[in-house]
């Protein structure tokens, strides 16, 4: 109890210290002016002249006071409090305006909250990747001598190894995105496009809403067909959402692609992609290839279990193929990209996997 009283008293001193400081400054400057005035009068000036000369010498009384005041710490908080009090006074003086302002803000916030909630549940909820808690990103992490971790670009050999050797992974696929220029049939525009390996659609578990996914033949190496899946937004912009889009062609960076399907609204994975086309990787290549890879674990597999298996696969790869610099610790890891709750699932969508 006594300690509480002491704390309160200290707080009070800090607060009242401010006005004491103000009084101190005022008195000191007044005393300065008096002395200065007296000195000027001593030189034979009139009282009025002396006062003016003294003030001139002080270099502006108010500005001197202001400088001293601003040197004190905590000034910013004090002016904030002044602003708050000023706002409060003004609002009390104009109750009509205040009521309307509060009403407007309240309705605005309420309405946007309502709209966002509805949009989220109607549009976003049905969208997530199928069983997204089974999806992981595959990453190559290298740790140098100083313990710094770096993410390396994934080489095709790792994807091959995961597909061939992992018992815990159901499917895996890789993708690489790039900007392409879309021309013909309207204004040219930049489109983020993604080249995807076979099994990509099965891995992420999202099917086109119009048309069909790529066929096995279209995804095989040396396939002559240039086909593409397009995003819902692109479909609306270029084809007004018409089903005739399927089978029509798009010219991208001087290559012509035939549209075979349209992905669901809001599906823009990865990185705002609006177009997807098949690609193949050179089998077994160990050069980093700017790839991102995703894998779908078998039901019931945990990320920890998967990473134990991947560590074994990596050890084997290094032994057999010498795919990594032995002086560094290189790991192949699976990073989960969504928790299983529906709320985080939609939130994690763009970054996943």
């Amino acid at each position, binding site marked *: 109890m006594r300690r509480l009283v002491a704390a309160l008293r200290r707080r009070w001193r800090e607060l009242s210290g401010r006005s004491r400081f103000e009084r101190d400054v005022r008195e*000191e400057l007044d005393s300065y002016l*008096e002395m200065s005035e007296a000195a000027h009068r001593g030189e034979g000036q009139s009282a009025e002249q002396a006062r003016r000369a003294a003030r001139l010498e002080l*270099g502006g009384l108010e500005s*001197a006071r202001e400088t*001293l005041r601003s*040197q004190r710490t905590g000034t910013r908080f004090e002016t904030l409090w002044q602003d708050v009090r000023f706002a409060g006074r003004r609002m009390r003086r104009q109750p009509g305006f205040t009521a309307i302002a509060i009403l407007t803000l309240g309705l605005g916030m309420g309405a946007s909250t309502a709209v966002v909630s509805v949009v989220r549940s109607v549009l976003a909820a049905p969208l997530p990747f199928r069983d997204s808690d089974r999806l992981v990103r595959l990453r190559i992490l290298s740790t140098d001598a100083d313990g710094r971790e770096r993410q390396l670009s994934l080489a095709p050999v790792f994807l091959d190894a995961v597909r061939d050797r992992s018992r815990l992974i159901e499917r895996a696929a890789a993708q690489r995105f790039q900007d392409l220029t879309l021309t013909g049939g309207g204004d040219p525009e930049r489109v983020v496009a993604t080249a995807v390996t076979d099994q990509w659609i099965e891995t992420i578990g999202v099917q086109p809403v119009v048309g069909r996914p790529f066929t096995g033949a279209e995804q095989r190496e040396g396939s002559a067909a240039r086909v593409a899946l397009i995003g819902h937004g692109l479909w609306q912009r270029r084809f007004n959402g018409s089903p005739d889009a399927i089978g029509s062609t798009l010219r991208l960076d001087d290559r012509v692609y035939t549209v075979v399907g349209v992905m669901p609204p809001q599906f823009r994975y990865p990185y705002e992609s609006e177009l997807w086309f098949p690609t193949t990787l050179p089998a077994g290549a160990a050069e980093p290839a700017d790839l991102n890879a995703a894998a779908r674990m078998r039901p019931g597999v945990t990320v920890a279990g998967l990473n134990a298996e991947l560590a074994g696969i990596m050890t084997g790869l290094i032994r057999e193929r010498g795919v990594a610099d032995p002086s560094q610790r290189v790991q192949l890891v699976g990073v989960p990209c969504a928790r299983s709750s529906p709320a985080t699932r939609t939130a994690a969508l763009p970054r996943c996997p």
Partner: protein
Amino acid sequence: MPERDLLQGTLDLLVLRTVQLEPLHGYGIVQRLKQLTRGTFHFHAGSVFPALYRLEREGYLTSHWAQTEHNRRAKYYGLTPAGRKRLAAERKSWEAASLAIRRVLEGA
């Protein structure tokens, strides 16, 4: 000689020096500075007071209210032990700097 602006950073040194011998009030400090420099520099109370408050807050000066010889109340400033040290240090670095400048001017 016309009045000129004080060299940057030297005001602290001069203020500390004026109160070295005995505590002085603000007006006295300004007058003493004018006297000692024979009006070479322009001392505004508006810049001397902020320096005084700052030096006090930094612990180089102490202050107390007292009666002047003309029966007025005024706030007197005096050096603290830290202020004494600071003055010695400032003085040393000023002397080193001015010696260096003199060497340049006379050596060239």
